[in-house]
């Protein structure tokens, strides 16, 4: 856990959750938005493999109903040096899963004396989701690079499935861009082509999905390391405004 780059933690969200339980008076004090909706990363997340690594991207909106709780969220959570997870669903649930899996992988890599495989990270995430499938609302994507198989993307959706895919989408915004993916994804794209694909996909989803918005956060993971790029709102590719 790096002190200089702490994991995104929504203090308001945490306190609010407790507050709504303690007193009935709160109903009169707290705006309606806080009371009714759980905080979710209604989201768009995209991950694609390319030769030598993966490119992952997400929007930056955390919403509680119609209230935007955080407009610059970091949904790209680092599990190990070269493995990230993309979080969609309940912010609390996905943060908890990411924390536990980070610990598990840390411990395992100390025992094995080498960085963990992406498949192992994906399995740890999947096991948690499956074990608590009735309680969690978490759709996650685990993507990264390891020495054995190179760049890999694994999808771990709601019920506890694990499947490796060359490209995958997640979150509420993904529904609007499956067509874009089907039309524009080709295997063996270059790193730049994959980057453009991810960025355009997130942008398109942001324009149509109310629960996705803000900016785009992208990360390129390969054997040399992780490169993080934040594309701010006005720098997103232009989409024709009707």
């Amino acid at each position: 856990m790096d002190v200089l780059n702490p994991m995104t933690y929504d203090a308001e969200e945490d306190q609010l959750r407790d507050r709504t339980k303690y007193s009935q008076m709160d109903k009169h004090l707290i705006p309606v938005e806080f009371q009714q909706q759980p905080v979710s990363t209604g989201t768009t997340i995209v991950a694609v493999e390319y030769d030598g690594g993966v490119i992952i991207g997400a929007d930056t909106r955390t919403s509680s109903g119609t209230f935007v709780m955080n407009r610059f969220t970091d949904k790209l959570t680092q599990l190990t040096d070269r493995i990230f997870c993309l979080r969609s669903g309940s912010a609390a649930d996905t943060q908890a899963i990411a924390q536990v899996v980070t610990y598990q992988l840390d411990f395992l890599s100390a025992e094995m004396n080498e960085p963990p495989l992406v498949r192992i990270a994906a399995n740890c995430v999947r096991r948690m989701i499956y074990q608590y499938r009735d309680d969690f609302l978490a759709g996650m994507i685990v993507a990264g690079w390891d020495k054995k198989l190179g760049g890999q993307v694994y999808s771990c959706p709601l019920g506890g499935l694990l499947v490796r895919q060359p490209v995958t989408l997640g979150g509420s915004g993904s529904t609007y861009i499956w067509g874009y993916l089907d039309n524009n994804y080709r295997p063996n794209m270059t790193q730049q082509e994959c980057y453009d694909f991810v960025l355009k996909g997130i942008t398109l989803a942001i324009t149509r999905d109310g629960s996705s918005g803000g900016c785009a956060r992208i990360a390129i993971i390969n054997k040399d390391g992780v490169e993080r790029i934040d594309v701010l709102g006005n720098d997103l590719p232009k989409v024709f405004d009707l």
Partner: protein
Amino acid sequence: MSSIGSGYDLSASQFSPDGRVFQVEYANKAVEASGTIVALRCKDGVAFAVEKIVTSRLYESGSNKRIHNVDQHIGMAVAGLLADARQLLTVARDEAKQYKYDYGVSIPVKYLADRLAMYMHAYTLYGFVRPFGCFILLAAYESDGPQLYGVEPSGVTYNYFGIAVGKAQQTAKTEIEKLKLSELKLEDGIKEAAKIIYQVHDEVKDRMFELELSWVGKVNDGKHERVPTNVFEDAEKFAKASLEEADDDDDEM
């Protein structure tokens, strides 16, 4: 080389004045009394050859095997007390099973060797249990090549190119050192291992023995198994032929 413990050898929880744990050393004696195992890490796989000593003609052939599978990809050969080894086999299988359940991939043999060593070591710490009287050899063919690990009764693991354990370990080790293992192919390695077993087998002390051969490597895609019948027969023939050439050391190969 027998050393008398003189009072410091009654339990594994005691050190001797010169810093030895005699119970662990006695466990090694149990290993040295068992039939020989020869394990060779060849260029593209690992070969096990085990001299399974048969004490009576009344036993069914193939009973009390000394080579087992831990997971599909890891083979285990045991020297020493067979009953102790059986428990360690169960432990190893449990570890492999749990790893696969937790992480979704097959257990790396290095990790399994470490876990098994930790388990065996735990039994050398207390006075109310005794150390395991067996030497475990683990072999696998993984993405970074063939691997051969050994675990002693004390709980130490080593990574081997070639090793012999058991009655004739000194003689067999000398024979192994004559081979160029890094250039040896698995098909030839299995024959060499069989030959060494036949060479070091003591006809006077142990009349009957069964040869057990197994391999894991590129040839069977990393799945550890006993060698096919034709390979077994070829290896036996090779071994017996080289015996008949008496003290001739330049066999074909």
